[in-house]
């Protein structure tokens, strides 16, 4: 997030898109709901009539995979009606003319034809957003998990810059991170193209610094494979071994039947986890690790706040700290790693990570700090880009709408979108151990609108087969007011009826993120 969670409540307008916040970030959603209660204008743009829509002043419903179109539509109106922030655009941005030229085509009528959102709603929403003193944009996987994911995000950034909402309290472009430490995993260089703090692997100076600290030579300069590329590599045979720490791709990956074949094709797979997950069951070696309540360390949250994790209980059996396991293997491979404790790792990390350089465990004992925090005197940075952007001037990207990789047709007439429910988390390895959570959400379901169910002659609660070009699952039909005609929703938590047997593995060309949010399916009464 460019801004903080608490900052949301100070916005005059909040635009939430592609985020089912009350179910996926329930506590963060309280900030949005409270703001709406106190008079902030809440705009929800989402293909499902999610709970947050009931708290909103406006709910707009775009067809799946048409985000660039409606965002361009808003910018079209804002530029045409001269409602954009001229000072901000002139002083802090570049590429405005190209943007203007591209969005010129996106008249409200044209956008209505693509998205299904009425031209009037586009115009009204554009005015509301642009006229706000400060407007915050919140988004989540509904924006990113598309073959146009990167362009969707850039479009939201365009909208925020055009209206001068970056670098100010109550503004910003705020992605809501779905995993406790996904922010930290990225910050720590758990990505194929960057070292810690996004220092590029092909930057010789950065690599030289790490080589010195780590006492090695020849750190690889060529960016590596992304998770989705690794699956392809395993499938084609170029990737021979995979070491997986605390992830369960055998439920979370798209097009599972394909992923399963890829994993089977590996010569060697190690899984380090707390449970014998679907993925661990396929491994050659399984290593038992600590869970969060058994270890000391830090997590970085969605607002870049680095916070302490503390040991509360002893781990079961012979389980070990994840870092100790990896250090042991490194040592056995001829590179000794001997850290006395987790804090020693944090201290080494801060010497090579400028944005974390000023953070110590001591400083975050009671309240976490927001990075960048370059020195021990620095108070941390709650709001990013207040004076300038990382690259200097903010770049407008002129982007055109592109349809999703797969659209409904005669054989697969419905659109499918996937996500999570309140009572479960990701692949369910943790939440499905709680009887209470299982009682509230016992099994997979297929959410359908009352109209569609009636048209098909299906009753609520029957078992249906759901088929895509890639796979088939069986689940219970649930008629819901959240569903809109033509679009079905299935949560991806449940391995027994894994929605990802159906999803499309087509990825965004830049971010390599799969299009979990759109594919074509058909349903029929189960035999």
């Amino acid at each position, binding site marked *: 997030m460019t801004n903080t969670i608490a900052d949301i409540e100070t916005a005059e307008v909040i635009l939430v898109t592609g985020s089912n916040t009350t179910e996926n970030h*329930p*506590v963060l959603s309280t900030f949005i709901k*409270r703001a*709406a209660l106190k008079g902030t204008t809440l705009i929800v743009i989402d293909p499902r009539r999610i709970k947050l829509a009931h708290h909103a002043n406006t709910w707009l419903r775009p067809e799946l995979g048409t985000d660039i179109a409606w965002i361009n539509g808003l910018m079209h109106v804002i530029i045409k009606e001269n409602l954009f922030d001229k000072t901000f655009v002139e002083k802090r941005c570049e590429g405005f003319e190209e943007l203007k030229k591209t969005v010129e085509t996106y008249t409200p009528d044209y956008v209505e034809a693509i998205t299904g959102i009425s031209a009037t709603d586009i115009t009204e929403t554009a005015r509301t957003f642009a006229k706000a003193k400060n407007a915050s944009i919140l988004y989540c996987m509904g924006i990113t*998990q598309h073959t146009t994911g990167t362009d969707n995000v850039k479009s939201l950034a365009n909208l925020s810059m055009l209206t001068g909402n970056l670098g100010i309290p109550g503004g910003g472009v705020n992605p809501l991170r*779905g*995993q*406790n430490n996904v922010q930290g*995993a*990225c*910050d720590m260089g*758990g990505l194929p193209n960057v070292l810690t703090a996004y220092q590029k*692997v092909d930057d010789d100076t950065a690599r030289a610094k790490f080589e010195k600290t780590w006492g090695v030579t*020849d*750190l*690889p300069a060529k960016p*590596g494979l*992304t*998770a989705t590329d690794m699956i392809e590599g*395993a499938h084609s045979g170029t990737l021979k*071994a995979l*070491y997986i720490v*605390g*992830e369960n*791709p055998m439920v979370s990956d798209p097009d599972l039947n394909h992923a399963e074949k890829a994993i089977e094709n590996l010569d*060697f797979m190690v899984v380090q986890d*707390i449970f*014998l997950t679907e993925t661990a069951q396929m*491994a050659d070696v399984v290593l*038992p690790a600590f869970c969060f309540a058994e270890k000391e360390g*830090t*997590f970085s*949250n*969605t607002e870049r706040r680095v*916070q*302490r994790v*503390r040991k*509360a209980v002893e781990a*079961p*059996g*012979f389980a070990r*700290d*994840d870092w100790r396991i*990896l250090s042991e*293997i*490194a040592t*056995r*491979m001829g*590179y000794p790693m001997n850290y006395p404790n*987790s804090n020693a*790792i*944090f201290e080494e990390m801060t010497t090579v990570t400028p944005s974390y350089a000023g953070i110590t465990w001591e400083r975050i004992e009671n*309240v976490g700090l927001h990075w960048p925090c370059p020195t021990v005197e620095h108070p941390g940075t709650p709001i990013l880009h207040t004076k300038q952007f990382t690259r200097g001037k903010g770049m407008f990207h002129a982007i055109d709408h592109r349809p999703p990789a797969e659209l409904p047709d005669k054989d697969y007439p419905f659109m499918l979108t996937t996500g999570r429910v309140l*009572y479960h988390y990701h692949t369910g*390895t943790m*939440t499905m151990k709680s009887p*209470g*959570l299982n009682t*509230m959400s016992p099994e997979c379901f297929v959410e359908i609108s009352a109209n569609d169910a009636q048209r098909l002659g299906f009753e609520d609660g029957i078992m249906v087969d759901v088929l895509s070009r890639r796979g088939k699952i069986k689940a219970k039909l649930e008629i819901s007011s959240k569903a809109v005609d033509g679009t079905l929703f299935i949560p991806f938590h449940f391995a027994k009826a894994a929605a990802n047997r159906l999803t499309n593995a087509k990825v965004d060309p830049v971010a390599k*993120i799969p299009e979990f949010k759109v594919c074509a399916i058909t349903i029929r009464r189960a035999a």
Partner: protein
Amino acid sequence: MGNETHITIDNKRFAFEPSETILDVAHRNNIFIPTLCHLKGATPTGACRICVVEVEGAPNLVASCATPAAANMVVYSESQEVITARRSIIRLMLSSGHHNCAIRDFDTKDWTQFQLKVLEVDGTQDLCPVWGECKLQDLAYRYQVKAQGLPQSESKYPMERVNPFMIRDFSRCILCGRCVQACRDIQVNNAIDFGYRGADTKIIAGTDVALKDSDCVFCGECIEVCPVGALVTEHAMKPERFVKTKKIRTTCSYCGVGCQIELSVQNNRIIQVNSAGDTPPNNGSLCVKGRFGFDFVGSPERLTSPLIRKNGKLEGATWDEALDLVANTLTQIKKDHGSDSIGMLTSARVTNEENYIAQKFTRAVLKTNNVDHCARL
């Protein structure tokens, strides 16, 4: 220095901000005024009236939580009249429901003796689940309210235990409304409200249905704000509640919000999760997963020793066997097929320190940049 911005409480003068109530000024200056219904972040209702104070010139005692501080106001926080009023409020509350914390029988001034006696008298099954952590009990002791002789009214409504997370005991509810405010003003779930009228008043969900059949999402904010034993978790009713408990503050491990939580641990098992209080980012709020989804930690299904695949089956192994096998196989594959034939999926679930080590291992030891995690999934 003019008088216009000052208020006098218990003969001391204090400056105040225009938006502050008498209670705000008093609490800011460490003057004790008891509260039951008052909830930070919600509009004061003045429902319980335990916070009444005497204001010079005012015809009646005023609720300090709902009365704005005013220039030259003279306040007495605990005058005889105030004490009498508070005692009568407490007495009414004690007699209105099932408050078997033995306050009714207590006639000694020794708190320790009193507690010991209660532990002797009251069987675990009957003892109030929040005994010792109840604001009403604390106040009864502070104001020496003896409830002896007061008729105890029977609760009109049975206890609700049909949901998997919490117990609603209407017999202990004092109708302070904090749960309603927490649900409406803090979490904005609007699942519960006051229902019926007069002596029949009850906190209801929807059209007075069970919580599991209402709009309730089991965030548990109501449990955390309930000053008495009307809303408790299932654990609070178990006999283990008197086993020594240690409390550890940490960060929730579900979504990316990073709520600050407090784990209650007994005999190496997490038995309850609460918020870590008024601290960012969650300022005391939690969700159902964070509050109730902790069983996995102590699950019997946890992996406890390394496993190695032998003849197609995963079998138990020692750490030395497993680590040697991994180290040797990775070394061999690196030699035979090159560094880029190996991939590492680190995790958005583990700590920064562990992610740092995972990518360091991949780059410095395996000599490849094939490291990623599930940010995209």
